[in-house]
């Protein structure tokens, strides 16, 4: 379905990003696995992808660092000649009550989760405009739609990503670059493992489908948005949350 295409997945070394990277590879795409510090994990994903019979490279880059992001895009084009799909997935949490939240906690999350999306999008747009085609899929979060106590920084960033998605979709539509966001609910990964059992039970009671999502549940929606089946969808935010927010 995606053979001959090149995808970049930021934060592709673990969790949801890893699952997305593998799903796109299964569809035949060559995949660039971006990571921040965890080279070992990134290498494992690259090897798993190569076993699927497509090509993969890992690239370390802080998504909020313009130079590093430019270098990542350059390496991608040097290796594969094009960029068809960008999945802005890299993200972090620094949870705290607003009254206790430090400026650094706010800034770190905005930098990685919001500015990172801006940087990577800006950097791939040149190539996608030349190609007259491209797909950008931004991983937001359901809390960016609903709000969530203890996550002022994270929610602000994710709501920002949804707004950025809509604007980018409008700016680039004439060049056949489609931009959408996904808003996962509670997905079992390292990120959500940090929560206490009490917090997890509290979340569970809010989910109509009464279970947590798996990274694969998210990856399959990304696969759809990256495919020709989604040719007429842009600027949308797709909820993948077991019905948590309607």
């Amino acid at each position: 379905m995606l053979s001959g295409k090149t995808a970049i997945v930021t934060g592709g070394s673990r969790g949801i990003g890893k699952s997305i990277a593998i799903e796109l590879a299964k569809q035949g795409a060559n995949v660039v696995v971006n990571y921040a510090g965890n080279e070992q994990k990134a290498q494992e994903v690259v090897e798993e992808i190569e076993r699927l019979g497509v090509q993969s490279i890992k690239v370390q880059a802080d998504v909020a660092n313009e130079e590093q992001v430019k270098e990542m895009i350059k390496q991608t084009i040097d290796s594969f000649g094009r960029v068809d799909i960008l999945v802005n997935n890299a993200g972090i949490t620094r949870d705290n009550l607003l009254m206790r939240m430090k400026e650094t906690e706010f800034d770190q999350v905005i930098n990685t989760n919001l500015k990172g999306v801006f940087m990577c999008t800006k950097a791939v747009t040149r190539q996608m405009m030349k190609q007259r085609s491209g797909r950008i899929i931004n991983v937001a979060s359901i809390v960016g739609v609903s709000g969530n106590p203890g996550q002022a920084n994270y929610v602000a960033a994710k709501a920002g990503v949804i707004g950025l998605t809509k604007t980018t979709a409008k700016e680039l539509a004439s060049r056949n670059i489609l931009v959408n966001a996904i808003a996962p609910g509670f997905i079992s990964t390292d990120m959500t493992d940090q929560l206490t059992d009490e917090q997890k039970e509290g979340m569970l009671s809010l989910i109509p489908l009464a279970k947590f999502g798996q990274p694969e549940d998210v990856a399959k929606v990304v696969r759809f948005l990256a495919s020709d089946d989604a040719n007429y969808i842009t600027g949308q935010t797709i909820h993948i949350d077991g019905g948590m927010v309607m």
Partner: protein
Amino acid sequence: MADVFDRVKEIIVDKLDVDESKVTLEASFKEDLDADSLDVVELVMELEDEFDMEIADEEAEKINTVGDAVDYINNLQG
């Protein structure tokens, strides 16, 4: 001089799909050549590739006419 203008003209005709005769040094991209903001950004990208240079965003924003682009390139190469 003419050389740069000719190469710039060729790119404009190709990218904006306009008649060659309309591409004069005085022609404004947006007013006379029917380009929108994104077209201008794209043109600048093409010029960067053609002339193997980088035009900073602040400089690119000052390029409004064909002559602006030609001058910019000539100054850089001169």
